[in-house]
């Protein structure tokens, strides 16, 4: 019988962990929804707060592990078949809160921060190091001490752009990292922020806010 490869071990680990990852993401999503519910109820016309969640897919987890381990040639060493662990990934379970307009972002961030006080801040930054959105990594300890999770609070226009841009750019990383595409991505981010600044004064919170 052929020896099991590191990928075999990791895929087995993934499916062993999957129920736990699903419990974590359900727990995190429920907590985020619960704690943002008072904000949701005060949204005015045009204001939005959307909670998205996902469990990282198996092959995506393996690819990410290759990259965060800095394994050149993107190959696991077959002589270390059991030496890798998906638990090194910080985002097996993830929740993204999309918020519009931006003035609601701080409110959502502070509300969640008060609840997830022990989580580590790892803000999402652009190429120049400027913060695009707050992000936190931690454990839902009632559910799992092993699987780490992350949540982000993202300007909605940017988050919806990422929903299209990330899968496309992930597939073509070399192009994504080219100076030209970095420049174009920066332009999109600036234009979206500019649009939001223009429209925000006209989107009013519910009267009495």
């Amino acid at each position, binding site marked *: 019988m052929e020896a099991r490869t590191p990928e075999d071990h990791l895929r087995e680990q993934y499916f062993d962990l999957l129920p736990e990852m699903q419990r974590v993401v359900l727990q995190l999503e429920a907590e985020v929804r619960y704690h943002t519910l008072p904000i949701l109820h005060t949204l005015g016309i045009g204001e939005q707060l959307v909670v998205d969640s996902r469990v990282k897919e198996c092959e995506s987890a393996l690819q990410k592990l290759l990259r965060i381990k800095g394994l*050149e*040639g*993107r190959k696991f060493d*077959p002589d270390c078949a059991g030496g890798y662990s998906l638990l090194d990934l910080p985002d097996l379970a993830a929740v993204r809160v999309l918020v519009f307009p931006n003035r609601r972002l701080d409110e959502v961030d502070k509300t969640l921060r008060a609840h997830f006080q022990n989580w580590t801040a790892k803000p999402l930054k652009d190429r120049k190091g400027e913060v695009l959105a707050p992000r936190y990594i931690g454990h839902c300890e009632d559910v799992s001490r092993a699987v780490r999770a992350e949540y982000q609070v993202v300007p909605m226009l940017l988050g919806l752009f990422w929903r299209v841009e990330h899968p496309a750019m992930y597939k073509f990383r070399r192009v994504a990292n080219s100076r030209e595409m970095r420049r174009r991505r920066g332009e999109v981010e600036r234009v979206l922020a500019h649009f939001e600044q223009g429209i925000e004064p006209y989107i009013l919170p519910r009267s009495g806010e």
Partner: protein
Amino acid sequence: MKKSEMLFAANYRYNLDRDLFVNRQAKKAFSIEFVDDKPATAVRKRIEEATDGTEWRFYFNHPPPESVRRLLEQDLEAA
């Protein structure tokens, strides 16, 4: 000229799965980390390095262990 342009001009192709610049004829492969971290002169020197084309050469920051090297060679031969 940018480092990636130098490689493309020397008939290297970018392997998206492995993040390698590969020239199958010359049997040479550069990792993206090597290309990013080394100066253009060092990359140029390795591109121009003569080989007899019988064995693969991997230009990595950290040379791959023999077990990984074998897998990469199989992949690149089959590509």
